[in-house]
């Protein structure tokens, strides 16, 4: 556990220093842990567990958009779990459950085995349609059709800088839509 937490902290520091690969590895490493916690939260609230992936993606989005609030001298795991707990509570409330989140939901998960399969959620994808056209096109290209920033720029005849800006705004708008829904 301790080793994993330290590894996350190191990866997040590298990510903040501009290491994209470290950031990708970090997110891939936290996703299964978040998934197990989301399953547990949904099950406890008597909700269908097949919505866990929606919650995982919502947490990842929040982690991404709020990462400047992480203090690089502090361990990463407590920060991550605070965001995850907040989003899980939100998600369960939206689904009409009375929520009792156990603080241990996340520490218990530390022992949970990581599911290897790639899972799909419909929720974020359904909000894509509501975005301004440019943001939608860029997000579709990168997040659905797996294009790189460069390929996306060529495909949409935009500069790479404009693609980056549209991507960032698109992610922020998605988070806003999830919050309002």
């Amino acid at each position, binding site marked *: 556990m301790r080793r994993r937490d330290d590894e996350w902290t190191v990866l997040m520091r590298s990510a903040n220093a501009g290491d994209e690969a470290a950031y990708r590895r970090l997110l891939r490493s936290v996703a299964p842990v978040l998934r197990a916690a989301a399953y547990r939260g949904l099950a406890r609230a008597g909700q269908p567990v097949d919505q866990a992936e929606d919650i995982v993606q919502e947490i990842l989005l929040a982690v991404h958009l709020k990462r400047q609030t992480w203090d690089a001298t502090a361990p990463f795991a407590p920060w991550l779990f605070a965001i995850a707990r907040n989003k899980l509570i939100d998600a369960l409330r939206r689904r009409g459950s009375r929520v009792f989140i156990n603080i241990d939901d996340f520490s218990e998960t530390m022992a949970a085995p990581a599911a290897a399969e790639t899972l799909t959620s419909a929720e974020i994808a359904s909000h894509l349609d509501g975005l301004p056209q440019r943001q939608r096109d860029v997000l579709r290209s990168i997040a659905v059709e797996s294009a790189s920033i460069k390929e996306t720029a060529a495909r949409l005849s935009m500069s790479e800088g404009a693609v980056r800006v549209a991507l960032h705004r698109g*992610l922020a708008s998605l988070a806003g839509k999830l919050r309002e829904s």
Partner: protein
Amino acid sequence: METDRLIEALAADAEIRQPRIGTTLTWALLLALPVSAVLFMLVLGVRSDVRTAMHNPFFDLKFLVTLALAFSAIAVSLHLARPEASFKRWSWLLAIPAAMVGLGIVAEMMMPHERPWLTRLIGNNAMSCMMSIPLFSAPVLVAALLALRRGAPARPELAGAVAGLLAAGLGATLYAAHCADDSPLFVAVWYSIAVAIVAGVGAIAGRHMLRY
């Protein structure tokens, strides 16, 4: 959408770095304070006997108290913008300005006075105080809330209320330069009511604006 693909999109966006909340909040306050200051000069202005007043320690104490409130609330605001923050560890900072007023009251009580304490407490500017402080706080509160939207507070109402304290501290600093009531008793009652109003507005706004 596949989670792996979302992760790819997030990684592709990793390069855009957001400034730290402290930086954003500093800029927001630097932009909002001149607005409040201009508003203050237009509506009230500095009191005419300010040169003599400056020799009165109770006049000076007002600024110490309001600035202590502003700075302690800034520190707590920055702390509360973090998702894993606990309010308990830092809330004692907010007791500093209250303790300063308390000491001021004790000191004033020990001095001989021409006017009875109730007269000093009620003063001549109670209404003006309760209306002006929220007015001069408003630009600061708006700016602070916008800056704190970059944060991820676990308790948005609380974060909003502390942003209200921050704004009220700065608004009250301006107002203190106008108000001729220098008694710590006056400050303890009427400034507190005004500060509470701004904190309440901040809490309500925070509930909507600071959720993430």
